[in-house]
């Protein structure tokens, strides 16, 4: 009888623990980002043709030319990409070299987007079917990768860049340059 009572208390404690865990997890904000598993790895090999006439295309060798860069993954049809445009320009003003990959897009739409929101990019690759995006482990637009001079991915920013992200990205760029 005494054994049974102990066993029942055991059940109560286990149940309280499990429900406590449920309650705790339900109150935690959910991280909906799917991060790339390639941060810290070399960039996979690729060669994308030019998206627009005014800028050359982008290949993995362009990203391993000894200079750390930002690589922005964007699309003309993506509204947060338009929202982050002023901050990309700010990053460029502060000396960041920015290249871009345009996802599932057309030259006319990208030209119109750049005309409207500015063009801080030195190169723009045409990734019509997300092939490079998938090989980068990028889960959407916009995203910004920091690439060290030897082509190593050192940082991934998911979502649009806001004012508070500008110093963070500049700092990551400095760290990548020192590598």
């Amino acid at each position, binding site marked *: 009888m005494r054994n049974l009572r102990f066993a029942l208390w055991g059940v109560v404690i286990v149940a309280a623990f499990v429900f406590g865990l449920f309650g705790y997890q339900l109150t935690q904000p959910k991280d909906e980002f799917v991060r790339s598993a390639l941060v810290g790895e070399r960039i996979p090999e690729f060669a994308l043709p030019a998206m627009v006439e005014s800028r050359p295309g982008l290949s993995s060798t362009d990203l391993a030319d000894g200079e750390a860069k930002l690589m922005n993954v964007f699309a003309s049809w993506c509204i947060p990409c338009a929202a982050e445009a002023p901050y990309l320009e700010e990053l460029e003003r502060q000396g960041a070299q920015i290249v871009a990959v345009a996802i599932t897009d*057309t030259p006319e739409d990208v030209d119109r987007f750049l005309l409207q929101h500015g063009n801080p990019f030195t190169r723009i690759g045409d990734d019509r079917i997300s092939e490079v995006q998938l090989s*980068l482990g990028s889960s959407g637009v916009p995203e910004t990768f920091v690439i060290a001079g030897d082509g190593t991915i050192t940082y991934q920013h998911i979502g649009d860049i806001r004012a508070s992200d500008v110093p963070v990205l500049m700092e990551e760029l400095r760290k990548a340059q020192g590598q």
Partner: protein
Amino acid sequence: MRLLAALLALLMAAPLAAQSNAPPAPYAYQQLEDPALEEQATELMHTLRCITCQSQSIADSDAPMAGNMRHQVRTRIANGESPEAVRAWLVSRYGDYVSYEPVASASTWPLFVIPGILLLIAVIVLLRRVGRRVPVEGEGA
């Protein structure tokens, strides 16, 4: 009034601007010519998570990203890669999260071990109870 209605209609059409004008990838909505390969691809696509619409498999989703992922799966399988190799390629990019197929790993092994342990405990408890009751009944008779 008519102008107001027109403006309102225009406002409601705004989400349409958030759509790509580029055509979908060739194998996003097109099956492979070889039915055996298509079957392999379809089976795999049902167990891969769409990255932008995370509660759907890429076979179920109409998101452009899911279409592009289906294109990757189909072209890779058509090129002779095994479904598990394609899955491994995606997992190496996005982590286990991209796959719906459960795997036993450093963080998931308790899910596989605990039911076994609970079953074992249940069997032991049951055997002890049943084992105890028989002699008691024997004494009473």
